[in-house]
């Protein structure tokens, strides 16, 4: 059962002068329906794109009018302008209304590399297409996702944390994150997720209480691991190891160090650990109660992990959710699993069937469920006082991203942010980086390929919001983060001529 909130630590626990910043990522998959994701309101003085355009740019969503920055056709609006009793859009429903002043809805972030279904695109590793859907970007070198840049940054973690990052999902054990363990030039590996709340809990709070048996040094295993660490360090001096071999040894040294750190931590000095959750090891079913319970337990673990400062980085792969079934007259919800199975009726299949009204209804329902039952609930748990007037949410950057943009195209990839990262961002706004007077290359149901802004600038924004400077993440003399390759995209069909001169800058106007 979910943890009892009464067991949570009191808000006065964190006494640091500067509250820690945290980066939490929630990822959904395939398509977000443009008209259901973004406001489509013509009230409150707004009009739809349809009123201005007669071509494919007339997409049924709200036309923003306030200029965001000088010299660009970027626009913005206060999110509260679109607030109704039903929320601000079909998917971003009423459960998010209390948080509108703390949200930033961003439109027009384009993945530059040509990706298909992928793992790490939303966090900057575009060469991460799935095996079933290889893509042009696969030829790019793997780079660490930005959460892992943070995880190994001494600016983000001044000392080795007990857990650099926590990765959770239901149904899929491949994480969206890729890491080189903080070793520049080292092999980049995809991380794995925890799919059982108990495993996640154990990662965060440890598996076993200290031994009560008399005699043995309670610290003995840490001391034994220290010896193993020394063995690896000594091994590096062998003349019969190549540079590549030594890089592997370095990797061991890092991992053993992390094991040492884990064994060194004095449990729970700062907060009371929550109750151990039940084990839910089934990772393949679609039982609605199982999915719901697991998400609830996951959010409890996440919240406790963040509040107890066991980790400051969390990713949540939302491969499973509830949504309405195919019979529109049946109000009950059923379980959905987004896998690579694109057959009819599956979450993925619905996303491929975007011109079918019933499929759209179901797809909207799934994402609305995620908004209410995962995203909003997470925000509720985090929006409690931490220090002074700020809440944990205020000091965090919560990023709801998506695998792809509309209709399986890597353009205008959804991005909903919560929190201000300790005042770095100015939230409460809907920012639109699409130049609506620009060329509409082609359109599909609800979606038009019109040039926006490189998603790379969001990556930069997130990295800097978490306290890093360009020198902390830029490599090879290249500004910004993440590939800017548009290889394989024809300029006849796609927008490719971005302003690469600003690729290393944060999103214009996002700080207000």
């Amino acid at each position, binding site marked *: 059962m979910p943890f009892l909130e009464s067991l949570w630590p009191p808000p006065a626990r964190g006494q640091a002068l500067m509250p820690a910043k945290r980066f939490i990522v929630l990822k959904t998959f395939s398509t977000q329906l443009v008209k259901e994701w973004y406001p489509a309101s013509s009230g409150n003085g707004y009009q739809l794109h349809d009123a201005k355009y007669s071509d494919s740019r007339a997409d049924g969503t709200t036309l923003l009018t306030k200029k965001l920055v000088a010299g660009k056709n970027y626009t913005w609006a206060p999110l509260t302008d679109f607030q109704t009793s039903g929320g601000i859009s079909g998917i971003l429903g009423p459960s998010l209304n209390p948080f509108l002043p703390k949200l930033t809805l961003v439109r027009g972030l384009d993945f530059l590399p*040509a990706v298909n*279904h992928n793992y790490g695109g939303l966090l900057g590793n575009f060469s991460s297409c799935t095996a*079933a*859907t*290889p*893509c042009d970007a696969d030829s790019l070198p793997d780079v660490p996702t930005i959460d892992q840049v943070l995880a190994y940054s001494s600016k983000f973690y001044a000392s080795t944390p007990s857990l*650099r*990052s926590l*990765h959770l999902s239901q*149904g899929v*054990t*491949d994480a969206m*994150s*890729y890491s080189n*363990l903080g070793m520049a030039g080292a*092999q980049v*590996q*995809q*991380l*794995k997720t925890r799919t*059982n709340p108990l*495993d996640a809990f154990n*990662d965060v709070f440890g598996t076993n209480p200290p031994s009560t048996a*008399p*005699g*043995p*040094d309670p610290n*003995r*295993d840490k*001391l*034994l*691991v220290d010896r*193993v660490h020394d*063995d690896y360090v000594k*091994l590096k001096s062998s*003349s*019969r*190891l*190549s*540079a*590549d*071999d030594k890089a*592997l*040894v370095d990797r*061991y040294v890092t*991992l053993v160090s*992390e*094991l040492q750190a884990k064994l060194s931590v004095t449990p729970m000095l700062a907060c009371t650990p929550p109750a151990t959750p039940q084990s839910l090891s089934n*990772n*393949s079913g679609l039982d609605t109660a199982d999915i719901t319970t697991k998400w609830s337990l996951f959010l409890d673990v996440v919240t406790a992990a963040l509040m107890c400062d066991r980790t400051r980085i969390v990713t949540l792969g939302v*491969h499973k959710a509830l949504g309405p079934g195919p019979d529109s007259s049946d109000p009950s919800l059923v379980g959905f699993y987004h*896998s*690579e*199975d*694109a057959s009819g009726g599956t979450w993925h*299949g619905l996303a491929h069937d975007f011109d079918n009204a019933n499929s759209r209804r179901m797809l909207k329902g799934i994402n609305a469920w995620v908004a209410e039952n995962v995203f909003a609930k997470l925000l509720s748990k985090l929006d409690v006082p931490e220090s002074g007037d700020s809440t944990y949410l205020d000091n965090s950057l919560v990023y709801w991203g998506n695998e792809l943009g509309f209709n399986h*195209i890597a353009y205008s990839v959804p991005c909903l942010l919560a929190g201000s990262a300790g005042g770095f961002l100015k939230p409460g706004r809907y920012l639109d980086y699409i130049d609506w007077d620009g060329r509409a290359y082609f359109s599909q149901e609800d979606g038009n390929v019109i040039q926006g802004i490189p998603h790379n600038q969001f990556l930069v924004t997130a990295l800097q919001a978490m306290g890093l400077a360009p020198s902390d993440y830029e490599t090879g003399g290249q500004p910004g983060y993440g590939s800017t390759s548009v290889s*394989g*995209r*024809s300029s006849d069909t796609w927008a490719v001529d971005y302003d690469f001169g600003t690729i290393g800058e944060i999103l214009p106007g996002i700080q207000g």
Partner: protein
Amino acid sequence: MHTRAHSRALLASPFVALLAVACTGSIRETVAADDDSSGNAATSGGTGGSATSPGKGGTSAGSGGTHAGGAPGGSSGSGGGGTSGASGSSTTADPGAFGTCPSGTPEPGVTPLSKLSTVQYRNTVVDLLRASGLDDLIESVTPLLDAVPDDSTQASFRGLDKRISSDHLGGYFNVATTVGDLATADPKHLSALAGSCATQSSLASSCLDAFLKDFGKLALRHPLTSDELEEYEDVAQGSSPAAASPADALRNVVVTLLLSPRFVNHLELEGSPVSGRDDYVALSPHEIAARLSYTFWQTMPDAELMSAADDGSLATDDGFDKELTRVFADDRTQQTIWQFWNEWLRFEAFTGFASERPAFRALAAGEHVGEAGHDHWGDMVQEVRDLTELYTWKQSGTLLDLLTSPLSVTQSADLSHLYGVKAWSGSGSYPTLPDGTRSGLLTRSALLASSLETTNPFHRGALVRRAILCEDLPQPDPTTLPPGSLDPPPTSETETTRARYQAKIAGNNLCLGCHTTFSNIGYTFEAYDSLGRFRTQEQVFDEQTGALLATLPIDTTASVQIGDEPASDVDGPLALNQHIVASGKVEACLSANYFRYTLRREPEANSADACAFADMRTALTTTGRGLRDVFRQIAAEPGFRARKVGAP
């Protein structure tokens, strides 16, 4: 090391230039009921699926995972299939990567430092417990072994996945501490571990030394050096940590040994320099013992190997040959060789038959394939295992025998019914497959079946090009394709599957340039339905109801080019098989893959690796030696007993 006189140029890949055209690979999105079966990974999170269960079956070369996903090459069915040819991941190996075998005494390629594969690690822990008289602990340790991440077949063979992660370290730690705790928890286990002296109130130095020379040697796979003895004596008797009892002292040593870099990795640092070089060494006898056992058994050396290493005989040609013969004849080698076929042909990627689909049930009417309660995919895979083992172990068969065998070796009543033969009884002569229906490995159902009621000729063709012929098919860039390019062609009452797929790419030169190299191969396999059943007509079913919509004549003729020969017209899979066999490309492909699988590394061009490859390939030709000899040959190569160190 004996002298080489090879100077053989290897086959170039005549298709490379042609294939360098977009629009070939698979965008079909495969069914994956539970996406990850590999479980490998990096620094955080899940433990992934489990692999072998050492406690149940003892040592095993098997891999983890379940049958999941698609026909070999990853071409599982999806909700309609895709239109492009290739499968997801592949085990494509480039025979051209070996270059030419130099004359003289060439050096082998670089052997990088690597961890034990997860299968090897699990087997090693289990065998260490057995060798130490601690068999009864295996059951308790097995769940922890299972929690160590499986190696992935995502891009290649499991053994080539050498990534390590915090989950590995965490898994090793849990295993080490649990073994340490359990093995020292009571006098019975302590006595088994270190003798009755370990149950005394204090730990005598002689007791500790004997333990280190025995258990320490087993764990580290060599007699402990004086430095190592000193190190582990300090673990037991020093102050960091201070042991509270003899049991605690031995426990700490066990934990440290099982976490040692020398336990979890293949560390080969003790050999003798060749020509005074520190970057090229002849392996020590104990390192040779470990190479032999891990290559063919996937586990630590047994007592006989260690004995041959101890007395130095393993370092002699005769002594090595004797042990190689013994090791190769062991059942564990058969498991290792089967796992090679299993991973090469990607059988673990199958996701299961879509028997819930009305159209699938309609197709399978009269057969039992896909029905609940029996693993028919398992029957299909077992048939391939039985066939390969027939020509490898029961008979001194050749690759040609395997590729052209008319025998039905399955004991499955349902599979033999699908083939139209009687099931083999388990003894006596094998039934012969009906004339004109099948010939050899490539026409067995495990290489033909897919999840759905319809075939995908693109996938079948790509499997042959990629996995069997080792040709590199580039993946298409979906973003350059017109919308809808990757959607499956809809079922038609008037068109066969072949016609529908042909129409999908007709007139599109971007696609045709590459598709013609493999699609035509797939068309010849239209002689089999998606169950792998031979047919002369194609039945078209309504997807929703399973109603028979049409029965259409199939066309299995195609113009196919294999190897260096010009394109020629073939009719049906048997004629195609003849071309494939005659091309000699399967020999090269098998040799390249077997090298990578057994040695767990990529070849180095123009080194002794090229000679090993050439030896295997030559031996596999129709006039060459049997499969068994070829599989053994890899260890008889001089480079097997040496290690080349990479650039500092």
